[in-house]
């Protein structure tokens, strides 16, 4: 199911207050589940909420048009929502001054490492997946590269 198909058959979206209500309900339930996890294995409310909302959508209990507008609105301003976290670093100015520039350098390098290593690992594993798939289906068709559903990843960027 691609996004385009979803959009074209998308009925009228739910009123914004109803959408907010669904978000609030999911968050409330998540906040009840979150404390059930042990302290050594913390799973915060937003993470549980994300999983819960995803499951509700996947099981078609909540329809996409009931949450799509409000969700997109929230995601569109996430840069702004993060400003207070950025400004909260004002309280770490002492730590930064004490531990010097090394700590900032380590954080920058770590960020790049996590980005690049995860991306390359995934690229390698997906390539492996596609290779295995195509060698399995190679005897059926020589044009699998253009028809294989496993190549869809490349063509679906919208």
């Amino acid at each position, binding site marked *: 199911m691609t996004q385009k198909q979803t959009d074209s058959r998308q009925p009228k979206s739910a009123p914004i207050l109803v959408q907010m209500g669904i978000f609030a309900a999911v968050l409330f339930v998540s906040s009840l589940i979150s404390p059930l996890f042990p302290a050594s294995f913390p799973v915060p409310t937003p993470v549980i909420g994300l999983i819960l909302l995803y499951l509700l959508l996947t099981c078609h209990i909540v329809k996409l048009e009931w949450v799509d507008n409000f969700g997109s609105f929230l995601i569109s301003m996430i840069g*702004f929502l993060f*400003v207070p976290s950025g400004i909260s*670093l004002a*309280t770490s100015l002492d730590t930064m001054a004490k531990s010097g520039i090394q700590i900032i350098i380590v954080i920058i390098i*770590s960020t790049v490492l996590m980005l690049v*290593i995860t991306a390359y690992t995934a690229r390698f594993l997906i390539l492996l997946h596609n290779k295995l798939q195509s060698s399995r289906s190679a005897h059926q068709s020589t044009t699998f590269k253009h028809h294989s559903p496993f190549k869809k990843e490349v063509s679906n960027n919208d």
Partner: protein
Amino acid sequence: MTEALSQPLFGIFLSLAVFLIGQWLFKVGKGFFLFQPLFVGMVLGIIMLVIIGHLLHTSTIEVYTKYYKPGGDIVFWFLTPATIAFAIPLYKRNDIVKKYWFEILLSLIIGSIISLFLIYYVAKGLGLDRTSIAAMLPQAATTAIALPISTAIGGNASITAMAVILNAVIIYALGDWLIKIFHLNQSEIGAGLGLGTAGHTIGSAKALELGSVQGSMASIAVVIIGVVVDLVVPSVARILGL
């Protein structure tokens, strides 16, 4: 004057004002990476707090807790519903999730284990002390997971908090450039998982700009990486002798 400042309105207004200045600068500066609205907002906001501290003859930390935090917390709270909103782009590309779930899971586990060891050696090589090194390890998770894990393995939680926030700021500012120089977009799934791991929800918003596949993969990364950090970081810390 100080009464007006301690209203939550001040924190909300300051957050909005510095971010809007950032957006304006970003537009005028034709997208220069240091003018990313979040980065500008953060720097200007901190400068404002330092200036107010000087004017009122108190510390910056006090200005932050007394005057900025009441409003800042209100804005910050909306990150919670914004995080669960990432279920929507994830659901929209359920086709990719169903097809590649095993590779996605494996990439995130292997990727984070390799990253952990490399981060450890980089931190050690640059001469950080033990508590700072330990604080660097859980940074792939969101704050609510990273901070308790950091404390559990003997790290300095405030350094971890700083790392998690800076991850997002760095990805927001340098994401496009990093994707270009490392050719990450050759694999849409890889780019998405990387952005979600390194940049948390901000990375996911960045990934959504690249495409629906990247956006959904970044969303799934935010969830899975949290669990992976919960499970893997304590053992890796033990292996490394922290």
